[in-house]
């Protein structure tokens, strides 16, 4: 038994979403409120989670539209206007090289969000496949596969990622694959738990008796039905990946100049904070707000999808 840290999601089997078992729309209406509708109703009532949700939607839009919104280009230097405090021409001031901080924060957000989302997708793919295969096969294979996960849990992957980044160049694709590969363990456990609780349900037996091959059962029936917890954990994975990326960039091992992620900007801000505290404060605030929002949304989703498993 290894300590798996903070149990983010109690392994209680959530009921299969009703929508998956009810084929026609008429039947849906008869069934009343589906699990998802019920969950969304609960989510809408959670003000923190909704606040986080709207902030994230806003931020995502801004990040997508950055090339059109940003008043300057991210590497445009103006050595006559270095370290300017915030003003109407430079909303967040300028940095040591006279680059517009507002623009750089927008571009930084793009990178941070991109790494966060792509790495989380990597972790979901690996975790879901591993977990569902392990849970579906069961028995000794399952035991062995989960033991392997237990062992990996005890390894501090961030050190391996650091070594990887140092020796194989600071390539952004390598970065998100490496970060994604550090995050799939909990996902695998969650999915395995779901699959085990689902695989003896009637609809799976029905599929088996009709001769549906195992991989189709896993991908068509088991995985779609365990999506709830996966989505919840995904929203909690994104902030931790963003945090890891910022951590690496802060140490100078992440995104390389002249591009910048929030971590790089914070690191530059620290160097200049005595004369220009805004260089630290703006990127730090935005990073923190995004992390808050993602965590609140994740918590809200968890409470909404699993009302019984309310934490503390």
């Amino acid at each position, binding site marked *: *038994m*290894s*300590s798996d*840290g*903070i149990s983010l999601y109690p392994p209680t089997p959530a009921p299969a979403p009703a929508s998956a078992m009810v084929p026609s729309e008429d039947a849906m209406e008869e069934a009343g409120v589906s699990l998802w509708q019920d969950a969304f109703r609960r989510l809408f009532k959670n003000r923190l989670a909704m606040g986080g949700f709207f902030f994230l939607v806003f931020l995502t839009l801004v990040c997508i539209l950055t090339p059109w919104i940003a008043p300057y280009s991210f590497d445009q230097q103006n050595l006559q206007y270095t370290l300017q405090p915030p003003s109407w021409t430079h909303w967040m001031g300028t940095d040591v090289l006279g680059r517009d901080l507002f623009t750089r924060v927008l571009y930084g957000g793009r990178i941070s969000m991109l790494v966060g989302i792509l790495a989380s997708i990597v972790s979901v793919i690996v975790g879901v496949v591993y977990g569902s295969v392990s849970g579906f096969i069961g028995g000794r294979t399952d035991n062995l596969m989960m033991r392997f996960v237990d*062992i990996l849990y*005890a*390894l*501090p992957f*961030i*050190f*391996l990622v*650091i*070594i*990887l980044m*140092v*020796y*194989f*160049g600071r390539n952004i694709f390598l970065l998100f694959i490496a970060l994604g590969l550090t995050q799939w363990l909990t996902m695998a456990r969650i999915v395995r738990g779901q699959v085990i609780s689902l695989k003896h349900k009637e609809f799976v037996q029905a599929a088996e008796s009709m001769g549906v091959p195992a991989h189709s059962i896993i991908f068509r029936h088991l995985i779609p039905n365990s999506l709830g917890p996966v989505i919840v954990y995904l929203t909690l994975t994104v*902030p931790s990946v963003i*945090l890891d990326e*910022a*951590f690496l960039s*802060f*140490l*100078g*091992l992440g995104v390389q100049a002249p591009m910048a992620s929030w*971590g790089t900007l*914070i*690191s530059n*801000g*620290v160097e200049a*904070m*005595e004369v220009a*505290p805004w260089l*630290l404060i703006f990127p*730090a605030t935005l*990073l*923190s707000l995004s*992390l*808050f929002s993602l*965590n609140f949304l994740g918590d809200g989703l968890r409470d909404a999808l699993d009302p019984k498993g309310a*934490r*503390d």
Partner: protein
Amino acid sequence: MGLRYLIGRIAVMVPVFLIVVTVVFAMIRFAPGGPFDTERQIPPDIMKNLNAKYHLDEPLWKQYFRYLNDLAHFDLGPSFKHSNRTVNEIIGDSLPVSAELGLISLVWALLIGITAGGLAALKPNTWSDYVPMSISILGICLPTFVIGPLLILVFGLWLRVLPVAGWNSWQDRILPSLTLGFAYAAYISRLMRGGLMEIRSQDYIRTARAKGLSEPKILVKHALRGGILPVVSFLGPALAGIITGALVTETIFNIPGLGRFFIESALNRDYTVVMGTALLYFTLIFVCNFLVDILYVFLDPRVKYE
């Protein structure tokens, strides 16, 4: 606890450790660039001598077994960049610093976390619950590399009450350890509150209450032991996190600890120092997790390992 369990746990560690050694060794050796790459071209003769001195001219498998053999004798080899020092010496100098930082941070985390969580659980849904729990959300979401610089900015540069860098006087210890411990204090306070809230509804607490014990006394004498269990199981990850977090904290506050050496040598491609420190980190985290699991058995007699 079964002796078999103990032996099993240790037996698992050995192959895992070997795999880690191999992976780290392979990653470092197959990566482009070498430890003697500098801006200035080193004459080929000197390069040859350097390579011979550090056995870099031998075939890879030979180097690997040489390293394993040295490792078995607790010899981590010489540093490539700090020419007169061995990795053992570097670790010997910097590990105590890091250990001190980590311990102070852990003490902060436990003190603040348990107190805040206890206060919150004493009167749930009042101000003494909301205030610490709101602060703890801040602590969980804010990364060390945001908290640290902000603390420096406020206490070091604006108020000028605490030093911002170095590792000499006791004042130097305050900001780094708070930076490192804050997130864990926040987490521990939430776990503590959750644990205590769960225990409060147990029958034996009702009995204590029926005996007429005061609420704080019930909390300390009866509820604490059960309520602290979630905190104990969090200690393993917390220690691992504090060890990792020290990389940033030591860099920000310019502390001559292991974390700074790891980052510095990683950037310098100082192979042996990177290997040595990384392996030390792995070992530390393994041992911490192991100790925490054992501690758990003593606190909770219901837990049995097989």
